């Protein structure tokens, strides 16, 4: 049997949230790839097509949830990987806040873009 390796300490909140967001992302990331590469080809994407999809409340909500969970899962993964590599003290605090700000900027910009795509702001 192979040993089990992880960058996370099992049982803590960051570990738990990483698993919960993973379950959601497994389905939504696969759906995203299928829809935008196989059902609609990426090379044929137009603003009107994007707007038609984003105008549906369910799709819009799913994409916002996708943005938020993917940002959390990605940034939380990076943070834990760095802690696992020995990050601590002031550096750990600095990295944490840089990642928090980067996440907030990404979610804000992604949400703003989604509103433009849905035609809610123009």
């Amino acid at each position, binding site marked *: 049997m192979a040993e089990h390796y992880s960058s996370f300490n099992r*049982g803590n909140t960051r570990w738990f949230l990483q698993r919960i967001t*993973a379950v959601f992302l497994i389905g939504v990331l696969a759906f995203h790839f299928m829809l935008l*590469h196989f059902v609609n080809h990426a*090379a044929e*994407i137009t603003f009107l097509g994007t707007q038609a999809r984003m105008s549906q409340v369910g799709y819009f909500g799913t994409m916002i949830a996708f943005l938020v969970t993917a*940002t959390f899962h990605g940034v939380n993964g*990076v943070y834990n990987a760095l802690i696992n590599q020995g990050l601590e003290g002031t550096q750990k605090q600095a990295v944490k806040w840089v990642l928090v700000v980067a996440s907030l900027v*990404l979610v804000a910009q992604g949400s703003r873009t989604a509103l433009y795509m849905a035609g809610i702001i123009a």
Partner: protein
Amino acid sequence: MSQSYDRGTVEDFGRWKEFSAGMWAWIFHKFTGWVLVGYLFTHIAVLSTATQGATTYTQTIRGLEALAIVRVLEVGLLAVAVFHILNGVRLLFVDLGVGLEAQDKSFYASLVLSGAIVVASVPTFVSGAF
């Protein structure tokens, strides 16, 4: 139940011949995770052209998709995403204590299945670019 192992220093890559399947799974999952989070920021940056108007958005997406290198990179992104998803499912089962005895085999299965899905997807991803 949680157990910890002394895995040594992963940065000492000269030890790579000693790495077990679990170590390779950890390295690949970490690498694909870094690629995906990097891509997420790039993806939102590109999609943000939607705030500059419909024409700018459509031309940007179509201009990028017309480049063969972008299509090749997209195949790479698919490979990274599929492996991260499949190995992620494996990790969830491992954390639930399911299939612990076969976790090396499930890692190999993740690799083989990722390869098969990517190879099968290549025609769709590169269609019209070459």
